[in-house]
């Protein structure tokens, strides 16, 4: 009897500790969200969303080009990074024990941990030096950042697809590569989508590599080989501005927009990959 009560007490303590840890983890998250919304919302306006970026300290204008720039650079990076990442992941999952796969997996893990500023320098040294500060340079740096994340999650998601499903398709006379691209991929799509989402969210907020590649700009997009604006760069510039009363609200507004964009991408991806039969 005593031991039973003791065990119940133990249970209670463990559960309380878990709750406490959860709450401690949630406090910073919640306060970031509350702060961003409460400070960003007042700054929100039509002109913030759609007008060109004013010089620091000057009233009026908005961050239109930064929103546009982020959407363009992130889209371009995704177009390059997602297919490479997904196909590398497929390769790693399908040819698990090959030498090349082990080597690639190792490189991939290393790449995941490379600080983003290093990727910025890479983009700078190989692209900027050749063609100048440009959207392309930024997109390449961000794509390199996405690849290891997408690769790894794709590999894991595919490994989770039961062998029985794969064999069912192969036994129907479906070629192996087609089986992978249809049945296996569609069983793994939720996991892959999560990886893509993680990668897109991660690069949307990157600042360091962009500073070294797209440089930043106050004007609308003017070509893939030209510098461009981006939301993280705008946040960075406005928050460093000496004219706090004018520029700080803009930084908060821009932050809110960034969070909103990531949220929208999240919802779209979740919706488009939801299981038909849950």
């Amino acid at each position, binding site marked *: 009897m005593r031991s039973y009560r003791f065990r119940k007490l133990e249970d209670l303590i463990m559960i309380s500790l878990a709750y406490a840890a959860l709450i401690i983890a949630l406090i910073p998250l919640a306060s970031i969200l509350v702060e961003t919304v409460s400070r960003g919302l007042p700054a929100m306006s039509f002109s913030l969303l759609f007008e060109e970026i004013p010089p620091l300290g000057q009233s009026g204008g908005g961050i239109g080009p930064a929103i546009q720039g982020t959407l363009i650079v992130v889209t371009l990076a995704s177009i390059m990074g997602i297919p490479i990442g997904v196909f590398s992941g497929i390769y790693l999952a399908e040819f698990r*024990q090959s030498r090349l796969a082990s080597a690639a997996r190792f490189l991939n893990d290393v790449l995941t941990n490379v600080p983003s500023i290093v990727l910025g320098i890479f983009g700078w040294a190989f692209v900027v030096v050749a063609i100048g500060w440009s959207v392309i340079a930024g997109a390449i740096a961000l794509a390199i950042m996405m690849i290891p994340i997408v690769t790894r999650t794709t590999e894991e998601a595919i490994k989770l697809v*039961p062998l*029985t*499903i794969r*064999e*069912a*398709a*192969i*036994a*129907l*006379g*479906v*070629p*192996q590569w*087609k*089986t992978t691209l*249809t*049945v296996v991929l*569609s*069983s793994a799509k939720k996991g892959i989508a999560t990886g893509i989402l993680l990668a897109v969210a991660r690069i949307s907020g990157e600042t360091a590599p962009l500073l070294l590649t797209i440089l930043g700009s106050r004007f609308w997009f003017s070509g893939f080989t030209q510098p461009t604006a981006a939301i993280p760069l705008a946040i960075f510039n406005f928050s460093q501005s000496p004219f706090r009363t004018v520029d700080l609200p803009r930084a908060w507004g821009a932050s809110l927009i960034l969070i909103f964009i990531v949220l929208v991408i999240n919802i779209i991806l979740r919706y488009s990959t939801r*299981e*038909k*039969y849950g």
Partner: protein
Amino acid sequence: MRYKIEIQSLSAWFGSKQVLQDITMRIKENVVTAIIGPSGCGKTTLIRCLNRMHELTPRAKVTGRVLLDGEDIYGENVDPVTVRRRIGMVFQKPNPFPMMSIYDNTVAGLKLNGVTDKKRLDEVVEKSLRAAHLWDEVKSELGKSGASLSGGQQQRLCIARALAIEPEVILMDEPTSALDPTAAAKIEQLIRILAENYTVVIVTHNMQQAARVSDFTAFLYLGKLVEYGSTKDIFENPKSELTEKYITGEFG
């Protein structure tokens, strides 16, 4: 009656472990052939060698010949994909595609191979589900998930899926082992009917089942073919002492 499949000196390995030793047997067309034997004796491996599924396992190896209508399926210019379209397979555990409807499951083999003609697909769905004796139970809910069916229905769906690609031979690996007696009885009836048009090879653990559904029986022990003959002979008049012991339940 002619022979549909001729297995000649077939041996199979997983890595360095040999699990089939020099198997030679001929399987007749349009009959049911049962493969029996204790767990681990190589029954699954044997039928997986017949549609070239064995080689999908890493480090698996096969030697010998398997003639389908006289032509070696391990021949140099033979595409395993073509072999698998002619020799269908039903697995031990029902494995419908969970993300597909009953309709799509039934014609998965056609759709995945690029057939899009809606009228043809509709026809094949009805024909295959009828052949698998599932049509009446599911005809009003073809859009439902294949995974939402009962175990026995799922297994019949998998049979329908195998029939939809119009194979000549159907391999079944303990198709009723995951099912209750009523569902199993339905599958057994179905196997008898299928034998009118298809060559059926069934692996089973269940002696009564082998006796009920099969025309010929092969007894496999430790990777070797111990005895093979008409089911009646094997059960009533086994030549080998080992076979007799096994079917009377002395071991296994």
